[in-house]
């Protein structure tokens, strides 16, 4: 039984093709690279068959008809209104916006496109793949969904222009060298996402070495920090726990078919290969089911470093997808963070069962773009928070995915309370990029610099207004470290183990140390494992009323969050921020909650009796 086939004929053809064509950027070395990849992953133990032309699940596709001159002309207008700003006048991905973006906008010239139904190295299907990309956008990048902005015709027009004028090194009409082997996604019967399938998938991702880049738990934290794409820009492996950020998620994040497609055809231009030639369709479904099951759901299932047991697999399958907000295509955000009462000591680690008492909330994080130095790339776009309290203290558990553990090694010249670091050379990314840029490597762009920052501490901070009880609603101190007259209570944890209390009085004013309160703060746990930070901190509910926020029961207490990724060069004001949330300590249930409903129910029974008696009397009267 040769289910796993090593398709020599296919690769040989590619090798020949490679030597004889005028090579384009994307094609040069692609065949050789694919071959080496296939050898690496497939190993030498696979049987080779001469009759196999295509990988399992693929069929011969048809060539698109060349677009009309009118369509190209109409598409040109769309392109020069909407697309040119990032993709540039020659489609080289070097528009004015490009240098501050990561991932960088696509360079169309080589005809290399990430999300395809076609076999690895082939051009995408224009009316399926590229049309869906324009329609649904590429989440996790700046490419938005153009549905509702451009009509369907306009989207097709602009693709006619891009594919015929801006893809310069290859052509869909090139009958000599371009072939289309299309994944038959709609015809292949999916394997249902059962616990067995998920468990098998978790084994396969180890066998196939997916975890080398994507990490043991799939948080994209593998040995992959220095990965580069075809253009030499740094690139990071997908975090399987955030399916809504998958480029190919097509505004349908939890749909396992998207993962099956990407796994079958690979992501062109990146180190992510196609696995079509060395996995069976069935195995690909198992892997896709496993990857989809890891995407964050209502319950946070501990997958124990990827060693998925039957019980874990069953839990993964039972967990329900989170609601995705159709306006943002991200998980829905609830701005109320609940905290629940527990008797006795607060939890000592994340395994304490009492965390199950309270919902975890997602805190959406965006780049700090209000004041200099602005942060145009956030490697951390959300933080999960849970909170419990007892008679004297409150505990927060923060968990967030961070591909790199960053602990500052070099001495820095500034003190921890200083906020204006421009004097020390911490500056924002210059705008760069104009329509006339010509250096294809863009060494000054943010995408080229991503792996070259000085490493600072990872960190997390949250702030409450001091004396929030006295604020006339909805007045709050400014979200960014308060303002004059409205100071804030800042608690900041950094990866070097420090947990400190500060007072903030403005975005550009150095913090004041609150040393007395700092002594009362406690880092219960701070651990980075498999691409995720788990930080549990406790603080007293009350301190000095004049300096420290009093945490009271049953009140809406404004809180907002800040997070730093040291490998992103985040320090000082360069970080990610959240909007205002409300912390609410839910008070224990009072007696009245039981008494009044009981009285109401008894009342209803009496009314029922009355109605029945009346009806019965009436009927008697009639009789």
């Amino acid at each position, binding site marked *: 039984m040769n289910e796993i086939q090593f398709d020599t004929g296919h690769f040989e053809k590619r090798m020949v093709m490679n030597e004889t064509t005028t090579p384009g950027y994307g094609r040069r070395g692609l065949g050789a690279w694919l071959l080496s990849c296939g050898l690496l992953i497939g190993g030498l133990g696979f049987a080779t068959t001469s009759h196999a032309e295509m990988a399992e699940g693929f069929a011969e596709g048809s060539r698109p008809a060349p677009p009309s001159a009118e369509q190209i002309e109409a598409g040109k207008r769309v392109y020069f209104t909407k697309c040119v700003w990032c993709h540039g006048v020659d489609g080289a991905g070097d528009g004015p916006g490009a240098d501050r973006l990561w991932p960088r906008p696509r360079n169309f010239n080589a005809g290399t496109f990430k999300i395809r139904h076609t076999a690895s190295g082939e051009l995408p299907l224009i009316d399926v793949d590229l049309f869906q990309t324009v329609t649904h956008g590429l989440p996790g990048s700046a490419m938005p969904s153009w549905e509702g902005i451009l009509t369907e015709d306009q989207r097709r027009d602009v693709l006619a222009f891009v594919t015929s004028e801006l893809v310069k090194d290859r052509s869909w009409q090139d009958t000599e060298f371009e072939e289309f082997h299309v994944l038959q996604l709609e015809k292949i019967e999916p394997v249902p996402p059962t616990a067995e399938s998920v468990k098998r998938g978790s084994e396969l991702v180890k066998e196939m070495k997916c975890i080398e880049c994507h990490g043991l738990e799939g948080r994209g934290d593998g040995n992959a920090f220095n990965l580069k794409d075809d253009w030499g820009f740094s690139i990071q492996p997908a975090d399987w726990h955030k399916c809504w950020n998958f480029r190919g998620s097509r505004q*349908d994040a939890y749909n396992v078919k998207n993962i099956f497609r990407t796994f079958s055809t690979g992501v062109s231009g990146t180190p992510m290969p196609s696995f079509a030639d060395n996995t069976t369709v069935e195995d690909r479904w198992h892997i896709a089911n496993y990857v989809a099951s890891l995407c964050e759901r209502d319950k946070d299932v501990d997958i124990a470093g990827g060693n998925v047991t039957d019980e874990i697999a069953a839990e993964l399958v039972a967990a329900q997808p989170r609601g995705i907000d159709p306006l943002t295509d991200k998980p829905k955000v609830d701005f109320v963070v609940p905290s629940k009462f527990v008797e006795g000591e607060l939890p000592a680690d994340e395994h304490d069962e009492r965390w199950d008492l309270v919902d975890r909330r997602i805190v959406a994080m965006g780049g700090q773009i209000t004041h200099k130095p602005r942060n145009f790339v956030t490697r951390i776009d959300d933080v999960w928070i849970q909170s419990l309290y007892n008679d004297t203290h409150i505990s927060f558990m923060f968990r967030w995915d961070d591909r790199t553990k960053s602990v500052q090694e070099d001495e820095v010249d500034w003190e921890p309370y200083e906020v204006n670091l421009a004097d020390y050379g911490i500056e924002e990314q210059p705008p760069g990029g104009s329509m006339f840029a010509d250096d294809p490597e863009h060494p000054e762009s943010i995408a080229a610099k991503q792996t070259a920052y000085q490493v600072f501490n990872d960190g997390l901070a949250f702030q409450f207004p001091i004396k929030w009880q006295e604020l006339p609603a909805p007045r709050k101190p400014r979200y960014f470290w308060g303002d004059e007259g409205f100071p804030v209570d800042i608690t900041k944890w950094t990866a070097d183990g420090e947990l400190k209390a500060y007072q903030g009085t403005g975005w550009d004013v150095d913090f004041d140390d609150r040393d007395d309160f700092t002594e009362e703060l406690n880092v219960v746990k701070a651990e980075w494992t498999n691409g995720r930070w788990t930080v549990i901190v406790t603080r007293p509910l009350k301190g000095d009323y004049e300096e420290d926020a009093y945490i009271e029961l049953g009140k809406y207490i404004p809180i907002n969050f800040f997070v730093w990724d040291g490998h992103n060069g985040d320090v000082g004001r360069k970080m990610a921020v959240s909007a205002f949330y409300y912390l609410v300590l839910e008070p224990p249930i009072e007696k009245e909650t039981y008494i009044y409903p009981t009285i109401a129910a008894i009342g209803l029974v009496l009314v029922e009796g009355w109605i029945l008696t009346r009806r019965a009397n009436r009927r008697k009267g009639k009789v």
Partner: protein
Amino acid sequence: MTWLKLVEGYMPMQMITELAICILVFSIINYSLKRAGMGLPKFWAGIFVWCFVNLFYLKYRIYPPIPFSVRAIYGTVAACGIFMWVSGSQQEWEEFKRPIINVLDAKTGMTKFIRTALLILLPIGLWGFAYNSFLPSFDEPIELRTVHPAPPATTKVHGKTYVLQTAANPYRVNPEGKYDQAYSNAHIVSQDMGRLMKDVKNPEDNPWDPNAKGYIKHVREGGEIFFQNCHFCHGDNLNGRGLWAFAFNPIPANFTDAGTIAQLQETFVFWRVAKGGIGLPGEGFPWASVMPPWEQHLTVDEIWKVIMFEYWHTGYYPRTWE
């Protein structure tokens, strides 16, 4: 319901049409069933319509979701409407209440069973409902924010004072170099072509033409600034759905909406851009907005250019005093 998309900007019309179609379909079915001699009982038809409108349509179809209190009002109105429908004549009313009387009288085994079940379940249900409503609930508090607060008379940017009533965009000029809104209006992205450029070959219409001069060249420069600074929040479509829109509250302004820059004067936009969120008066929630005070990042000229680009790209005209 992902198979039936709500189109932004057309939601109310879409929903009224959908409801009208549903009612029409229901009436046709009801009528044809009646003609066929299998008319639906009035009682069940009434309950079905009410459940469909209130429980299903208003709760699950409308997006963003409407609060319970508003739904309760609609529910009451719908109930009144249905009540009027079923009590149109004495005969219809008798027909409507017959199932209720039948259950109360409990002459058959079935109605007896239903009566007993209802007598027990109703108090239990009421208890549960009351308990739920007595449980302290912590929904997000509603905070009303003024999106376009009253502007000041003057604003000082980079050391120079601008009178909002008389200031003008220095780049909104015709080829002679004079301030000319009629000229610039004629060269915005054409509305009838789906907001796209009129003629990509004409240097007066195409900001990317190397021969572009004056107004249209300044539009391109404004666009470059926009796509280096503003799109992170306001989006590549200028519709307020940028990369980080999901993280911020208040959400970034949607310039393609007729309620933002289209109904504002250019100088108002200038004031808002220059001073940012922190420069808002109290009713605009200056503490919550992440909108940068752009005077910290851009020159006055750059601010004027980016404003002009926003009008050009969305195809709107700034409001004027005339």
